[in-house]
């Protein structure tokens, strides 16, 4: 009789181990060993061109030199900046995937009106095909895409949400490289459908800007700056209320507040908006006066721990910061609009423009994020929200927005937290394929992310030690941010 240990027969243990062993050996050889080895590499001067089987030079231990070089050479920080810039699209992507998931929970069964959509779509596509066959210009391609969308809409209405779910998930199961090549074509500055679609719009904007009275055009940057101030006020107000309600400690609130001021700091040094620095500082001062006055007026405040509520506050801050950055960009565009419109508005050069290359990749990432696993996770989470909660909200007379904000959103918090953590990790590690396939990391390094930098240093320059240091620097970042997320975010989610 075999002896039992913890309810498992010893013989069974051996069998289990036997089955696991191939996998364990594989993990040890191909994961654990390389990881440990790369850590050791990061402290050496290993250069592939100098230290290899054909060379007599030996690899030297250089201590922290590679990590010092990370900071002193400047490239690492620059490419980290690129990575973080592209990551600013993550909140928008998460919102997009949530929106898509919510749309896809609704059934879209056909009715007479839907059939009309289908017929109209088919008619449009046929019309465009005829136009293209008859030698219509490149705008035909744009109309063709519009027609395809119409058809998708129509067939989706016929096929119901299953078809829509499949279509929305397409970006995830189409191979990355082919997707990137497709987007490269879409971004073609001369003949790409995106610019073909933008040209007429810009034409209208141009003629409008040129015909509008000067004073009215001059007002537009003011409106945008007011938008910046409004969003900042909103963000600070949310944080202040959390603080007053005892949901946010003073220490945990420091970083979110600082993040809300990041766009303002950028605005003060950016050449496009530097001229407005006086107005910007004035607006910021008004925002603060309002906040201080509101704080002073408040009578009671629930006390809490200094580190309480960091995750939730950061979520609010990041979302608001992205909005303020968008308003800042619009301020720059509006302040230069009269001059640009007088010269003629041209669509962006996208991937070949240093200013547009990163936003172009962000837009593509947004498209990918909508139809990603995040959407599936949200779909699953939405089906788990108890209908009783909605019924209770309905009985209380909640509006659709209130239903979302007070029922759906809190119920989705664990899923959102998971998605946020995974997206942050993915964002920090991302950008390699796009850089390799679409831009080569250019123009002038504008789309070189940290993962692509590791590749360049390791395989093009041959500095294996330095590349390992970059990789471990990246790991430290990911680990640090994930720890912060877990420490502060998870608590919020549980609450």
């Amino acid at each position, binding site marked *: 009789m075999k002896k039992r240990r913890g309810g498992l027969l010893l013989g069974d243990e051996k069998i289990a181990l036997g089955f696991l062993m191939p996998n364990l050996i594989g993990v040890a050889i191909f994961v654990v060993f390389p990881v440990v080895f790369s850590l050791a590499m990061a402290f050496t*001067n290993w250069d*592939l*061109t*100098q230290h*290899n*089987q*054909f*060379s007599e030079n030996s690899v030297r231990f250089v201590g922290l030199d590679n990590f010092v070089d990370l900071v002193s050479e400047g490239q690492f920080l620059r490419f980290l900046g690129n990575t973080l810039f592209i990551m600013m699209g993550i909140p928008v992507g998460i919102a997009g995937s949530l929106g898509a998931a919510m749309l896809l929970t609704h059934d879209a069964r056909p009715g007479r009106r839907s059939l009309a959509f289908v017929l109209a779509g088919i008619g449009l596509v046929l019309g465009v095909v005829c136009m293209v066959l008859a030698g219509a210009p490149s705008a035909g391609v744009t109309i063709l895409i519009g027609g395809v969308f119409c058809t998708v809409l129509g067939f989706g209405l016929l096929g119901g949400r299953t078809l829509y779910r499949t279509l929305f998930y397409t970006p995830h199961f189409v191979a990355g490289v082919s997707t990137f090549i497709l987007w490269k074509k879409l971004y*073609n*500055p*001369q*003949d790409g459908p995106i610019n073909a679609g933008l040209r007429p719009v810009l034409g209208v904007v141009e003629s409008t800007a040129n015909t509008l009275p000067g004073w009215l055009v001059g007002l537009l940057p003011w409106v945008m700056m007011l938008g910046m101030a409004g969003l900042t006020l909103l963000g600070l107000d949310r944080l202040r209320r959390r603080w007053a309600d005892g949901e946010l400690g003073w220490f945990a609130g420091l970083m979110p507040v600082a993040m809300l001021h990041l766009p303002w700091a950028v605005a003060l040094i950016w050449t496009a908006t530097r001229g407005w620095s006086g107005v910007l500082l004035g607006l910021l001062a008004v925002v603060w006066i309002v906040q201080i006055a509101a704080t002073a007026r408040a009578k009671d405040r629930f006390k809490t721990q200094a580190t309480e509520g960091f995750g939730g506050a950061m979520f609010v801050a990041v979302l608001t910061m992205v909005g303020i950055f968008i308003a800042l960009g619009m301020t720059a565009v509006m302040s230069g609009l009269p001059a640009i419109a007088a010269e003629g508005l041209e669509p962006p*050069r996208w991937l*070949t423009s*240093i200013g547009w290359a990163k936003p172009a990749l962000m837009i593509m990432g947004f498209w990918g994020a909508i139809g990603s696993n995040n959407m599936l996770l949200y779909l699953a989470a939405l089906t788990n929200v108890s209908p009783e909660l909605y019924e209770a909200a309905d009985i209380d007379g909640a509006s659709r927005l209130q239903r979302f904000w007070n029922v759906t959103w809190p119920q989705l918090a664990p899923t959102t937290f998971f998605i946020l953590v995974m997206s942050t990790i993915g964002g920090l590690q991302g950008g390699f394929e796009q850089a390799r396939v679409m831009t080569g990391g*250019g*123009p*002038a*390094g*504008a789309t070189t992310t940290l993962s692509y930098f590791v590749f360049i240093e390791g*395989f*093009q*320059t*041959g500095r294996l030690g330095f590349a390992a240091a970059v990789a471990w620097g990246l790991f430290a970042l990911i680990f640090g941010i994930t720890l912060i997320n877990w420490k502060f975010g998870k608590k919020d989610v549980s609450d």
Partner: protein
Amino acid sequence: MRLIILLCIAFMIVGGLATAWTAPGEEEGSTQLFWVTDLSPVRIEHVDGFTRWQLEQGLIDDQGKPLAKVKVDPNNGDQDKIVIQGVGGVGADIIDTRWGRQVRLFSRVGIIKDITSIAREGGFSVADTWDAIESEIAVDGRQYMYPCNVAVRLFWVNQAVFDKLGLEQPPAVWDFDTFERIGLEFTKRANTNPDRQTHFFFDQLPIENMYRGVGLSIFNETGTASALNNELYAEVLQRHKSWVYDLHLMPSPEDISALQVTSGWGGSSPRLFNEGRLGLLYSGRYILIQFRQFVNDGAEPLQLGVVEPPHGGFRNTRTTVRGAAIYRGGKNQALAEIFPRYLASKLYNQLIIDSADALPPNPKFVQSRSFTHPPDWPNEWGCHQPFVDAMETTAIGGSYSPFILTSDAERIRDRFKAEFDAGLIDAQTAARRTAELIELRIQRNLEEFPETRAEYDSRVATQQKIEERLAAGQPIPESWINNPFFRRYYAAQGLLLKEDGPTGGPSGQGGDP
């Protein structure tokens, strides 16, 4: 469950055995050598020639088969792949090595074999090729490859386009201003669509040609620092950028993608040139392979001319080499050593001449009518000799320093040029930072390789003397100058003092840091 797992394992074993059984094995007889090279349309001819040549030379085994046969590997020719596979012990037997910069990189990595002695014995030494390419195939007097072909890049002229536009044919020699003036007229007349540019004057001109044209090089005379921290380099950067983005003489990357031309061997530019959308094409004689292919595909033969690239006061052209080096980690090195002997043979040189794959490795073979007047291609007559003339007069090899890899220095140069083109920095800053970072990298290499410090200090002292002499307007002794560009430049300026005895030679200009 166990049964399913066992069935899966059995299926995999049977599948593996079946795959191994049906996989094409090596033919008996000739040993197979792998050659990492490009997929030029004429490469198969060259490979077949190797077999024929072995038979002619009696290099056969007991069964009468050639000792080796070559298989072309066009998928692993990227520099990164060659290095990674080389140090990993799985490099190809014969490695296409481009220009002196790859020779220096691969020899420093140690993946290619020093063939100096076997080259001398086998008749494929440095003396058996063009003088101008010594620095491209040898490092510190040691030879690492023998050319598969030798190129000097000039501007091809689509003469019919100039005639059609009512423009005179471009001059054989021109300066930057003349080039720009003619280019502006060309683009103005060629582009009739006001909304979109469809025709360009030329496809490309490397920045190296331009700064050499004003008397600059990436390294100074002794290779101890960069010579690009110079106002003239800043001007060249501005001019190059204006040709692309302001005057639109040359297409930008987005222009090329917008022109939507199918690409083939040699890129999309030959097709644009063939279609008359480019007036000039910067290339070597090898591009005739593609032009001939167009004719074979039904296009009309082009009316061709050849002119020098423009200069800023100093006429120069860049010679380039694609050579065959032998992998040091290969199993069949002895057999691979036969290959460069084939490259030096009359059979191979004639193949290069007939297939128009640039210039043959040995210059003695170009002294024939079959080279200057190929009977099947009368439209090319008059276009072949200028390449030989350029090789013998204006062609200069690369500039190399023993203290930094040229590929590293050029990466730095290109980085700041890209930042200037993108509007991130001004031209002066780009020039200054290029030189600074190259010098910083040199200092780091000196720390890494302290044994090169003595040589560096000695050269720095020489450099100081050179600068003193230049300031005084005195000629520089030739042996003081390691950079072949400056030897030629000062000779043209009347500032070179020829000496008897050893001159240091181009091969002394840059070994391994």
